[in-house]
């Protein structure tokens, strides 16, 4: 089917997209790479001296760097675990016969439409605030001391906020996948005396494997660069407790206006993202015949 003619036509058709993305990636990236070798602070214009790898040395030996690496992994991992587990459970629940399924689905899908800044502002102020937040009110009504979420469990709180936004996405994909499951297969298994757990592990879960892979892939892409939620709620603190790589790069380039240092951080982040990308590609390759 793929003749030489159609192949060259295909190449022609894909080229605008490839060229655009290549330009979008290479032009700023090469500028960033160049800046990363300069002493370049926005607040001190004038000559930008070439300083070799000094920016990299400072970025990699920054005490915040290691914490940021760990926090990034915890954040991505935490949200993935919550949304995938929660998503599978919710999808199974929504797949059951019930009244008003459409309305429940509308309710569950809603957080996905809320912009991250808004959701972070709402959670921080109206729910997690230890004096005026709703949680504090509930705690007090139960006779307990209010809990300072963003002070005492900052990363967990951010994971919660981000998970709330992504749970609907996971649920929807998993639900669609579940609905495509062959009912006869399930019934047959039930006839054979397979219990609900065994049906879940032997039939549903294998069927959902592809969908779970997709959820993990797409969410990872977005979760690696979680930023607004952190900026609005904790500013990366207290200490470095909620500083992820993206936020660290932000702090370098836009709080200190150290473009050189920020660029070095950006390049490091790109390298790390690529490692994750390779890892993901392997996983996808196994589970998804793209």
């Amino acid at each position: 089917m793929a003749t030489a003619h159609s192949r060259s036509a295909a190449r022609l058709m894909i080229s605008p997209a490839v060229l655009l993305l290549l330009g979008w990636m290479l032009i700023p990236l090469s500028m960033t790479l160049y800046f990363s070798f300069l002493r370049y602070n926005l607040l001190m214009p004038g000559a930008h001296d070439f300083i070799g790898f000094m920016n990299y040395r400072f970025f990699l030996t920054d005490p915040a760097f290691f914490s940021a690496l760990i926090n990034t992994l915890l954040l991505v991992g935490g949200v993935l675990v919550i949304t995938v587990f929660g998503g599978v459970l919710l999808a199974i629940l929504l797949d059951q016969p019930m009244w008003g399924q459409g309305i429940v689905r509308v309710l569950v899908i809603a957080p996905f439409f809320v912009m991250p800044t808004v959701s972070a502002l709402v959670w921080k102020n109206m729910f997690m605030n230890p004096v005026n937040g709703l949680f504090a009110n509930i705690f007090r009504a139960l006779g307990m001391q209010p809990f300072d979420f963003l002070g005492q469990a900052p990363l967990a709180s951010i994971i919660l906020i981000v998970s709330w936004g992504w749970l609907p996405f996971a649920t929807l994909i998993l639900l669609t996948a579940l609905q495509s499951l062959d009912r006869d297969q399930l019934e047959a298994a039930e006839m054979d005396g397979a219990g609900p757990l065994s049906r879940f592990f032997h039939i549903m879960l294998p069927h959902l494997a592809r969908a779970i892979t997709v959820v993990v892939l797409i969410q990872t892409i977005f979760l690696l660069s979680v930023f607004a939620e952190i900026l609005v709620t904790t500013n990366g603190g207290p200490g470095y407790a909620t500083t992820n790589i993206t936020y660290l790069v932000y702090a370098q380039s836009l709080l200190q206006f150290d473009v050189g240092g920020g660029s070095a951080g950006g390049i490091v982040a790109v390298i790390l993202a690529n490692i994750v990308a390779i890892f993901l590609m392997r996983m996808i390759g196994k589970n998804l015949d793209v």
Partner: protein
Amino acid sequence: MAHTPTKGRKLLFTLIAWTIGFLIFFPILWTILTSFKTEAEAIASPPSFVFFDWTLDNYVEVQERSAYFRHFWNSVVISVGSTVLGLLVAIPAAWSMAFVPSKQTKNVLMWMLSTKMLPPVGVLIPIYLIFRDAGLLDTLTGLVIVVMLINLPIIIWMLFTYFREIPGEILEAARMDGAGLRSEILYVLTPMAVPGIASTLLLNIILAWNEAFWTLNLTAAKSAPLTAFIASYSSPEGLFYAKLSAASTMAIAPILILGWFSQKQLVRGLTFGAVK
């Protein structure tokens, strides 16, 4: 028999599902309710759910302070513009990857996705400089381009997974009838792909609507969308929960309503090839 559910079981599932659905939706509901309270009521302890004096003052004040409709219109232009432009670039690309796959297809696709993993802050200053020199700062054109570029990989991938499900035989048949490449795409493929394109369109409008880094950093007054509008309510002096809630409601309501009305179309294509 177990699989024809009894009324009791159905009732139980209904109860659980409604409870969970309500809990997930609650933060949004609470924001909407709070937006109709006075500032004092918004922080009252214990809080009141519905039995308070409903007021529209917060909305009036927010509208007085910021030109909501201009921000709203900018959001519409940016999200719709970037999505449509993205589709124009993505449809041919996804078509060619789906129907004329080569050894490189998978790598190209993965590479495209990996461009989305770059932290935007790392390249803000270069982009800012480029935008300044091109005169694109604070213009809708500039934002449409940038938002299109950051979502392009997702658009291509969604379309690709959708196109791949279209059986090749149909194309063969069309070719036998002497259809050229153009008419192949226009009359055979596109109609079949409409549901996929529709849901790609919807998802990307949502993503673009909520994009908060570039839209905030590359705009000033003229082209600032709702993400910038909400940023001016983030931490003002004094009591602000009710005003914040009103501004939040105004920022999310349009996309929430669009999402709810079109959720069937959205969900249909949201599978990213996860369902065979």
